[in-house]
């Protein structure tokens, strides 16, 4: 009874949410535009037109799937046809040997492609830009050559012929319109997945990883895991489309199933339409495929090569003139226009922020212990036997001259550098002591850090930047947005929450660093020179802010050059010079320490002063 009573309002809210979405012009316009892909060929009713539209749907679906890795995750794969080919071959071989319906076989192919995707992605994701592209090309070539070589299995270069068993069960039809239904369904599915990712935690994480890997790590995002998720989804989708297309052409050969040219083509559709957007890949395909069909007809045999020449030239021109693609360049303009339609432009109602993670534990207990940290870069010893113990609830200041090794210590106690020797243990939220290894693991244990050189996600807005941090504790988008808004208010960024981060001045960026870290709701906060570049009044606010944070139970370590601020703020000071801790203790006592003055002002000064 009580459960039912509780459930009803939630269900009602969901329903009204769905209804209100349908009246949103962005939704109904997209659905209308999409349905044209089905309506036009059905209305014209010519098998050739159907073929053109099947081709559009297939390539748009492939490009949409590619965009998840190439656009969202920023990993420019030029070997995506590997998954298409694996899907096609698996399905066809299962029909041939086990008379298994392609409807089942395509999922087997997708599963295999996901595994291959992990196999390719896991080792290659550490490669940057062009080298990742080259590696994917190499994988494609290897698979193609193997498919040719092992002709006992694949039929080799002679190809594999799909037996013409008709009917829905075998996905082969005399009525060509049925192919369109399936192709359109696949496209819808791919776009729905793409849209869902874009508007979820995963989408934010992928953008974060693409823009700044370090900042993403600090927000608790495991770069490799997120990219792997993207490649798994993308590989699976690509493979499904490949299976269908193999049934459509009914003939598979390594040269077409694992074609480098087609791999480049599907990437190109995304680029022309707009990388990293939901609609881009479809737009690019709808524009280019019919044009290519027509051009082939017009230019055809008379001018062998002209068609490819125009293709290549257009690609170069697009990169030079519209690097954002169609959706990136005209998208905002179209969206603004659509929002003026009936039912548009309504803002979502205020959403209540979820509870922040409570911090428990006894004040004063050791919460982070670093023992004998040694960090060597080649012959240079950056930190030499540094041991620091952090107590719950304190503000610990780390000071020292430039190049003393402060940031190196930070990098070690936040997992960004693995110490040459020494150990770090952290007390997690559950009270257990752990020794995390990777930076994202530190972050999830509650060690949040900012970067001395700011690391904003330039193409995201201020609020979205903070949301990347908030996702660590709040997986749902609405929750994360509300939590991020709360942090923005606290840090004083609410007024500029919709500004793209790359447009912020340095002071704002510093605060954004703090906000993004704070949104991860850390129990330990590592602040690396957050006062630098701030005005006098901003510094005051920052000091105030740090006190507020501490009062909420967070333990703070701050590296700072602003002596006045750090002395007034800290409960305890650690002084580092040449990679060693030379003094620690109460701020007032530390400043009187002879070694500290020497380190800062030089021995001569010390002698002259007679200290």
């Amino acid at each position, binding site marked *: 009874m009580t459960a039912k009573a509780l459930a009803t309002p939630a269900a009602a809210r969901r329903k009204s949410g769905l209804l209100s979405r349908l009246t949103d012009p962005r939704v109904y316009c997209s659905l209308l535009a999409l349905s044209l892909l089905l309506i036009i060929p059905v209305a014209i009713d*010519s*098998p*050739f037109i*159907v*073929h*053109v539209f099947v*081709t559009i749907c297939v390539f748009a679906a492939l490009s949409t799937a590619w965009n998840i890795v190439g656009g969202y995750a920023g990993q420019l794969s030029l070997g995506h046809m590997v998954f298409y080919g694996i899907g096609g071959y698996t399905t066809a071989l299962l029909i041939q040997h086990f008379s298994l319906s392609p409807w089942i076989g395509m999922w087997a192919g997708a599963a295999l492609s996901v595994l291959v995707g992990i196999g390719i992605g896991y080792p290659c994701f550490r490669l940057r830009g062009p080298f990742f592209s080259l590696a994917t090309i190499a994988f494609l070539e290897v698979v193609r*050559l193997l498919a*040719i*070589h092992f*002709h006992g299995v694949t039929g*080799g*270069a*002679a*190809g594999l*012929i*799909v037996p*013409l068993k*008709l009917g829905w069960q075998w996905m*082969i039809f*005399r009525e*060509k319109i049925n192919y369109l239904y399936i192709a359109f369904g696949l496209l819808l599915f791919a776009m729905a997945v793409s849209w869902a990712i874009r508007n979820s935690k995963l989408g934010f994480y992928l953008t974060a990883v693409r823009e700044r890997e370090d900042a993403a790590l600090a927000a608790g995002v495991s770069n490799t895991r997120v990219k792997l998720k993207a490649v798994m989804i993308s590989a699976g989708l690509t493979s499904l489309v490949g299976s269908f*297309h193999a049934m*459509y*052409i*009914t*003939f598979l*050969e390594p*040269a*077409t199933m694992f074609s480098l040219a087609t791999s480049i083509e599907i990437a190109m559709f995304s680029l022309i339409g707009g990388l990293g957007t939901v609609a881009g890949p479809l737009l690019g395909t709808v524009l280019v495929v019919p044009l290519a*069909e027509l051009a*082939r*007809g017009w*230019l*055809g*045999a008379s001018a*062998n*090569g002209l*068609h490819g020449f125009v293709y290549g030239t257009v690609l170069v021109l697009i990169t030079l003139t519209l690097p954002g693609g169609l959706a990136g360049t005209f998208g905002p303009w179209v969206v603004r226009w659509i929002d003026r339609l009936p039912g548009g432009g309504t803002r979502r109602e205020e959403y209540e922020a979820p509870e922040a993670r409570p911090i428990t534990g006894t004040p004063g207990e050791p919460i982070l212990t670093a023992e004998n940290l040694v960090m060597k870069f080649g012959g240079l010893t950056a930190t030499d036997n540094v041991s620091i113990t952090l107590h719950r609830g304190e503000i610990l200041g780390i000071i020292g001259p430039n190049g003393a090794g402060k940031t190196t210590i930070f990098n070690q106690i936040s997992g960004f550098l693995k110490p040459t020797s020494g150990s770090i243990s952290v007390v997690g939220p559950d009270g257990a002591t752990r020794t995390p290894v990777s930076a994202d693991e530190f972050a999830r244990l509650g060690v949040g850090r900012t970067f001395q050189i700011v690391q904003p996600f330039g193409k995201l807005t201020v609020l979205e930047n903070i949301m990347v941090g908030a996702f660590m504790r709040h997986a749902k988008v609405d929750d994360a947005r509300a939590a991020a808004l709360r942090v923005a208010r606290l840090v004083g960024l609410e007024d500029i929450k919709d500004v793209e981060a790359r447009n912020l001045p340095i002071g704002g960026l510093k605060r954004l660093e703090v906000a993004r870290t704070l949104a991860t709701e850390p129990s330990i906060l590592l602040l690396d020179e957050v006062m630098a570049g701030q005005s006098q009044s901003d510094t005051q606010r920052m000091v105030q802010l740090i006190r507020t944070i501490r009062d909420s139970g967070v333990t703070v370590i701050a590296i700072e050059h602003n002596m006045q601020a750090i002395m007034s703020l800290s409960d305890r000071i650690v002084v580092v010079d040449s990679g060693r801790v030379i003094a620690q203790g109460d701020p007032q006592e530390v400043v009187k320490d002879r070694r500290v003055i020497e380190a800062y002002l030089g021995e001569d000064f010390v002698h002259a002063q007679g200290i």
Partner: protein
Amino acid sequence: MKLFAKVALATTLALSAAPALAQETVKIGALYPFSGGLALLGDESFRGLELAVEERNAKGGLNGKPIQMIRGDAVDPNQAVGEARRLTSVDKVNAIFGTYSSSLAIAATQVAELAGVPYFELGAISDPITERGFQYTFRTNPTSKDFANRMVDAISDAVAPALGVDPKSLKVGIIHEDSLYGQTVAGFQQKRAQEKGLNLVETLPYSAKSVDLTPVILRLKSAGVDVVLQTSYQNDTVLFFRQMKDQGFKPKAVIGAGGGYSLRDTVQAVGPENMEGALNVDFTQYRTNPAAAPGIDAFEKKYQAKYGTPPRSGHSLANYMGANVFLDAMASAKDLSADAIREAVMKVDVPEGTTPTGWGAKFNEQGQNTRVSPFLMQWQGGELVTVFPEKAAVAKLKTGVGAN
């Protein structure tokens, strides 16, 4: 209500009459790769069909109806499917002729079969095209199996006698590029060599994009191969002959399977003296005895008159011959329905040595021409001349390859 029925009936009648009017011309589809990498020989193949159709139209067409040709450009299998769909549905052709490339043919025939439109293959050699139990796919030209068999048989029937040795004493090496063409031909070669009890010592696939065939040549050389069977495109043929010379590899005979071996450019790039004596199995070429291929010289003249150049390869001739066989069959069919055409094609009975290619025509249940086999040719003095069988030969087979 009655009025409505009448109108409906009238409309139906009018609609059914429209195709009947259109039947005043016979529509055929011409599906070839007109653009893309295969365009050169795709276009050359098409010219054979074009000449055959023009010739027939000049004589009043097919049973008095002019033949209208509709071109379809198939660049890749997806495109072949699309164009085949267009030809069978939009243009509603009575039959499709094509295709030159085997993968395009396989893709397109799958569409035509489902649409119930006869598909006449005049140039693609992959065997499975006529091994799928299709009702409406027919082929006049020899298959890769015929190529392979002729190449292997040439060792015992032509090369060994010329050398004056026992065929079983010759060491045979098979090398081939690893795409569809090379892989299928080489597969049949291996089988045939086993059947014939020949001494096959090496089978080496390689990529046609190779920039170095020295390892292949060294393998052949160290195995002491006497006869090399190569299935290759142009680039790898050039590379093979050049590097064979560089490495001082001197087999007693080299036999190619058309492809790069038939092209004049290949000889020019290699140097005629280096390719002197290279044997080749391919569609009938123009230096063939007209006694065995009546009409071959007339075709060459017609081609020259229409296009202003001599034929670029034997593909046009093969397409011309095949097109004529099928157009004759269509003319003799009781109507142009697919079943009537099939019935007519099954009745075709043309003896060997009576067509411009020298091939006969008699189709098996699968639609494959059984009276067809490619000739053996040889490069002599920069010309590709037919040397075997005896009847078609214009020159005697010489032994040795290259200047050595």
